[in-house]
Structures are given as structure tokens and as C-alpha cells.
């Protein structure tokens, strides 16, 4: 495959065509194309998917499908990419304690991985101290908290409290995302950002990474 055919790879992802994408990835690898170039093309595809979502042309189903496609491609490219993922930075991700929803978190995770973030996914129903422990252990400067339930999202404040108690609040940015997230939570819970849109969340995280 010639590098000018990378547009086809991107297009197969953007148009959510599983068979075509699978074939093109295999073809690209067998022709000796660098995996990072494949990933770059697909990253640009996820950006276009995000733009289509923002314009109301794509919906959650398309983000999920793109995430599934990216997961499959990444599993194929994994062994080639070990040294290269994480070039954008690290993030600790989890659904807050009391909340077991993970669809939103999975979407954000896929977007982050395909944007070259190294993601430490703590899963669902995560207690505040686990977020802090993982951030310290990995030297991560960003914590992403997912929350669908308005009854559980208040627990986000406990993550901020735990960071303060550990003396690392000023070193770590905290973003909360999900259907229950509201802008007023920045002030009330002491987080740095609160969004209910995965794409906006990704934009903020990227901005923080550049600022650092």
C-alpha cells in the first residue's frame, strides 16, 4: 500500500465499514507501512468522526462503532505500537463509586487511545482513593471521572478532597464527564472541568496537555 492510500483507511473508519477497514489494515501491514502511519490516518479519522458528531451528523452509535473498530485495529497494531502510544500523555480514567455505567467511559477511552494517550482504566464503581493511588503510581497529571447518575456524581468532590489530602491537588487536573455532568459542578465539587459530551472532554484534555 502506498502512503497516499492512507486516505482509504481513514475513509473506511469514518464511514464505519468493518470489513473494508480490516482488509486495508492487513494490506498496509503486509506492504510494510509503518504502524504509526496507519494510526495517524485513523486518528485523523476519529477527528472527523468527532466533527460529524458535533455537527449532529453522527450519534452515540457511531462513536461506539468507531470505538469498536479502533479497538480491533489497535489489537492488531499493538505489538508494533508499544513504544509509541502514550506520546500525548497519560490519563487515569474510571466511573465514580456508586455508578456502574461504562458506555460513556468506553467511548472516551477509545477516543483517548486513538489520540495516543496512555489510558489507565480503573473500571466502574471506583472509590476516590483508587484514582489518587493510580495517579501517584503512574505519575499521571490528569484524572477523568465518568458519571451518568446524578445521585453518584457528587462523589467526584471526594476525589478532589483525596487529592488535596495527599498534597497533589495542584499537580493533577480533574475532569468529570457524563450525562449527569453540569458546568456548575466545577465550582461546587472543585473539579477543573465538567462536560457531558465526549468530544468536548477530549478537546479539554488535549488543551491541558499542550499547556503543560
Amino acid at each position, binding site marked *: 500500500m502506498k502512503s497516499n492510500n492512507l486516505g482509504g483507511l481513514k475513509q473506511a473508519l469514518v464511514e464505519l465499514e468493518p470489513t473494508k477497514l480490516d482488509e486495508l489494515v492487513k494490506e498496509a501491514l503486509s506492504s510494510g507501512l509503518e504502524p504509526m502511519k496507519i494510526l495517524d490516518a485513523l486518528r485523523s479519522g476519529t477527528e472527523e468522526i468527532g466533527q460529524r458528531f458535533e455537527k449532529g451528523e453522527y450519534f452515540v452509535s457511531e462513536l461506539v462503532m468507531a470505538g469498536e473498530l479502533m479497538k480491533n485495529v489497535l489489537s492488531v497494531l499493538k505489538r508494533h505500537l508499544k513504544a509509541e502510544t502514550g506520546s500525548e500523555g497519560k490519563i487515569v480514567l474510571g466511573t465514580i463509586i456508586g455508578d456502574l455505567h461504562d458506555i460513556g467511559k468506553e467511548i472516551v477511552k477509545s477516543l483517548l487511545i486513538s489520540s495516543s494517550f496512555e489510558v489507565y482504566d480503573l473500571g466502574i464503581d471506583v472509590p476516590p482513593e483508587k484514582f489518587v493511588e493510580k495517579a501517584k503510581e503512574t505519575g499521571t497529571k490528569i484524572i477523568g471521572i465518568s458519571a451518568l447518575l446524578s*445521585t453518584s456524581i457528587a462523589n467526584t468532590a471526594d476525589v478532589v478532597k483525596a487529592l488535596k489530602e495527599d498534597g497533589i491537588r495542584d499537580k493533577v487536573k480533574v475532569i468529570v464527564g457524563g450525562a449527569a455532568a453540569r458546568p456548575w459542578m466545577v465550582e461546587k465539587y472543585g473539579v477543573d472541568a465538567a462536560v457531558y459530551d465526549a468530544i468536548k472532554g477530549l478537546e479539554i484534555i488535549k488543551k491541558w496537555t499542550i499547556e503543560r
Partner: protein
Amino acid sequence: MNPRERVLRALEHEEPDRVPLDDTIEWGHLHPWVAAANHLEVKTYEKLREKLGIDLRRVGWPMEEEIKPPVNPPPPGTITQNEWGVKSEVAADGVHSRIVYHPLQHIPLSEFEFPKLESGYFDSISKLIKSWREKYFIQGIMYGTFFETIWALRGFNTFISDLYANPNFVNELLDRFLKYRIDIGKRFVELGVDCIQLGDDFGAQTGMLVHPRLWRKYFKPKMKILIDKLKKVGDVYIWYHSDGNIEPIIPDLIEMEVNILNPIQPDCMNPSKIKECYGDRIALHGTISVQETMQVGSTEDVKCEVATRIRTCALGGGLIIAPAHGLQPSSPFENVIALYKWAKKYGKYPLRT
């Protein structure tokens, strides 16, 4: 004018004596309803409905009639299984749960058996319908008609992938569901319900979960067949439920002869806009915020929201007020009382300008 006549008048887009009222007792957490019942000193849900002035009744979701304190939650980690074989794990809060076993990821569709209704299921429903028939507007419940039950069986991400990569499987699955729903729905209609409650959560907070193109490709045709079949069996209204924002498909629902749209969460869709655009063709049911007002608002906030909704959505009938979903456990019972008190006061026709 009795409650049934009141609802029928509103659904025909005419003004009854007041805006009809409904509850969401079976939908969410019982705590606020139990607290309201204690405050009003009633011992059964039927008495509670009478006290609050509820005009509609539901059949098909059996629950104990006697009001008891909410039972102790099962310990976190407990695995439960529903009639479809879907297994869920109880969360740390003992209230919510997460699906941990999707049968159709393990069993081929050809070998999968649909649940059989318990013998006597329709006997108890028939009794309830007879006892309510003259006075109340009765709804037969068939929520989770297609999508919600199917993705629980198959897994959300897996089923979304199926919509793109496995159309034959999706259509075969939907056809089996269609037959199952027609069989149950027909029985409801034959027993004399006024309305069939259909629906699936296709809406997220700001937009649809599933692309409207996919909804039109897979779900709309099956739902249309179901609605046509049910309307042929008897003179029933069709009620369609979806959480969240489903604005793109409202014209489709009207085209499919859906009569009532629920719950129109004001946090996701603007009820007055829906009324303005479609209010002459579809009735609005719900509309009072459970994410904000009923949960964290004051009784004054509830009063304001009820007044606003009636002012902007009740003109010419076509509005049934209820919480826009099940109440969260922390919702104060005072807000439940306030909702119905002010809806009865402000909802009298002719409306005050």
C-alpha cells in the same frame, strides 16, 4: 367528568375540566412515593393515586399493592437474573446494577427461547382492568419493546456493531421480537386496555443513542407493523416512551400513528417547542424534570415548573402531567405532593392567561 373521560378528551386534543395527571410509581425508586403515602396517611398505592388525583392506571407490571417500607437492598455484588436470562450485579449503593451476562453472546439465536408468561399472568391483569375500566384510562405496559431488551441480551457495543456488520442477524432477532410483542399486545387489547405503552430508550442527554438512519432502517418498520396490528385488534391509543432527546424521530412517530409521547425530559428536549411543532398531532406525557426539579429543587421550583408547563403546553388539551421518569430515591416527598397540588390548581380549564 371522570378521570377516563378527562384523559380521552385531552388525547383528542380538546380541553377537559383540568390537565390529566399520571404517576411513575413503578419506574424508579419507591422511597419518595412511600414517604408521600406516609405523609398522606394512606396504606395502598391505589389510595395514594386517588389522593394525588391520578387519572391513569397501568397493568402488566405486577407490584405489591400494600405500601411497605422499601426493602433492604441486596448486598453489593449479588447476582440477579431476569426472565430473559440476563444477569446483573448489584452495585455498591444496592440500588443500581450492571449487566454482567448477555445470553445472546453465548447462545445461538436459533436455540434461544423467549420467556413464557407465568400462567395466570393475564387473569390478574383482567381483574384489574375490570375494576378500573369505567373510571380510569388504562395502559398496558410493553416497554423495552425491541432495542432495550435486545441490547441487554446481546450487549450494547456488540449490538451496535451488529447494526453495522450483521444486518441479517438483527432482522431475524427483531422478527422474533415482533411476533412475541404482537402476541402479548393483542391480549392486552382484547382485555380492554385503552392504550399500549411501547418504547425503548433511544435518546441520550443531548441527542439520539442510535443514528436516526439506523432507527429508520431497523426499528421503525417493525414498530409500524406492531402498531398497525394492535390498532386492528381494537381501538387503542399508542404511547411511545424514550428517555432523552429523540427530536429527530418525532415526525416518524407521528407518521406511525403514535398518539402519546413520553416522558419529554425537559433537561433533554424543550416541551414547549415539541408542543409548538407537533402538539396538534401528538400528546405530551410527563415533562416535569426528575434530574433537577423533582430531585434537587424546592417545592417552589416544582410549582414554577408546573405553572410554566401548563402555560406553554396545555392549551387545547394534549398534555398529561407526570414526573418525566421514575423519581430518584433522594427526591423529597414534599415535591411529589407539590407537583400534584399545583398541577390540579393551575391545570383547570379554561386556562388562566
